[in-house]
């Protein structure tokens, strides 16, 4: 007779696709093979975790269809099963996993679409804090702007892709025009994804804009972030990007660090 821990570890292995024969003396068949009874639990795990993954990755699911998604989800669940019962947090490694699959190579944008869905999901569940407004910065002497350090809003995520992932995301939302299509030539794309209030927003940034935002998120002074952005785009003007990000609620606090 196995201990409870031994039994549970053996059943975990079976539910994640392992061989059930080791448990055939422990499970009463009662008209079925013990493996058939264990298979009910394997199906529960596979199907229910697949549904949780499909809820987070609805656009990936729509792009590849039910059969392909179910097959990929099964592989992913067995390779990286959840470590937490909060399934809105499950699936962080899915984009990287998709990138390793030869079967998905025909859709080169798929991993980046998955990355967008993951950061959308993170932004959706992030802490609710009041974003910084332009009024908060009104008292700062313009000559000190270079010393400004901006703490990102906890929902802010930055994402870059060689593909137009926002457009792909948009046309695959419920209620989108089914005739709408996206040309992959519309890429590359840099995005700020954030949820300062009730809804998740996606803001498209220029190459200089994402470089600036990336340094600011790291805690760089505005002057240093600007310098990095100019290395990327020599004619980059930070004012419009900053104005867009601040009015979108991308930051939480500010400080001056001379």
């Amino acid at each position, binding site marked *: 007779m196995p201990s409870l821990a031994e039994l549970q570890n053996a059943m975990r292995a079976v539910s994640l696709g392992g061989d059930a024969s080791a448990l055939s003396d*422990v499970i009463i068949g009662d008209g079925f093979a013990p493996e058939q009874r264990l298979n009910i639990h394997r199906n529960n795990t596979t199907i229910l975790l697949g549904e949780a993954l499909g809820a987070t990755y609805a656009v990936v699911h729509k792009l590849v269809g039910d059969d392909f998604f179910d097959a990929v989800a099964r592989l992913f669940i067995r390779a990286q099963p959840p470590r937490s019962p909060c399934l809105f947090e499950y699936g962080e490694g899915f984009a990287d996993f998709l990138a390793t699959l030869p079967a998905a190579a025909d859709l080169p944008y798929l991993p980046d679409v998955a990355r967008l869905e993951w950061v959308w999901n993170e932004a959706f569940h992030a802490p609710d804090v009041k974003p910084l407004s332009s009024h908060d910065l009104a008292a700062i002497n313009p000559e000190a702007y270079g010393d400004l350090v901006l703490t990102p809003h906890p929902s802010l995520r930055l994402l870059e892709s060689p593909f137009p992932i926002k457009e792909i995301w948009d046309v695959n939302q419920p209620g989108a025009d089914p005739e709408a299509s996206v040309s992959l030539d519309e890429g590359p794309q840099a995005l700020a994804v954030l949820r300062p209030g009730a809804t998740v927003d996606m803001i498209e940034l220029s190459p200089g804009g994402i470089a600036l935002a990336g340094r600011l998120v790291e805690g760089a002074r505005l002057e240093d972030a600007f310098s990095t952005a100019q290395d990327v785009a020599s004619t980059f003007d930070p004012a419009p990007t900053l104005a867009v990000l601040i009015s979108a609620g991308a930051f939480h606090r500010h400080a001056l660090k001379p």
Partner: protein
Amino acid sequence: MASFDHTAHSLSSPIPAAPFPSRAGIGLKAQHYQEVLDLAPDIGWLEVHSENYMCAGGPTLSWLTAMRERYPISLHGVGMSLGTASPLDQVHLKRLVDLERRIEPGGVSEHLSWSIADGVYLNDLIALPYTEESLDVFATHVLEMQDALKRRVLIENPSSYLRYAHSVIPEPEFLLEVTRISGCAVLLDVNNVFVSAMNHGFDPVQYLDQIPADQIGEIHLGGHSQTIIDGRTIRVDDHGSRVCDEVWALYERVIERCGAKPTLIEWDSNIPELSVLLDEAAKADRILERAHNKHPENPTEVSHAVIG
């Protein structure tokens, strides 16, 4: 609420179970959030899966807070895995305590089952082998959960698809022993009893009749499906359809014997229009109403219908 033997449990400040009314409630699904707020249907209470609301912030938590301002809420957990041999996930327990403090629910419940092994969450409520070892593990974990929450919790009987060769304690006895050791209440899922009874060939009436009325803090009703494997039917508790006639009959028998109890209509897959859930809830309410008329000494707890 009926009197209860607190001698065996260790809560520092026990809060009585079932401050939600002895009426029908529904499982709240995201598809119905807006409609529930707009229509404000006359239902006794709402139940949610705790794990869906353990986020740091965001709209789901805002929806639940808005619901809590209008209805009593029951937090029904699917992830504590009280039956796992290894220690409880302390991070998860802390998140439940935080949610409980935030929502101040009418009840907190979990399952007589396990879902986690070797740190992996299988998203499946798997029945335990009913042994002395399991009883010790399970009751200890219930006590730990109650101590963390500082309240009595409700434990739901599982639906099961397999039995273990070394299981020696009948499930209702095991469940009642857990209530005796830990002081928890029973969340009696009538559909689960029926599903297990059909899958294993026991008499559901005999099972249900063993659960004393004063131990039952809540009842669950849901639909199940039937799958044919090798010419034999297995019933699967998928909460994807209306409550079947046999389960309604068993429920009426329980209410006849025990008086009115808070009763949930569960629906977790193939989720229908809100009106279908309300229709099922109204059906349960009619049965509960007859019990109220028949057991006037067992008054309803409608005074708690709006708490906080």
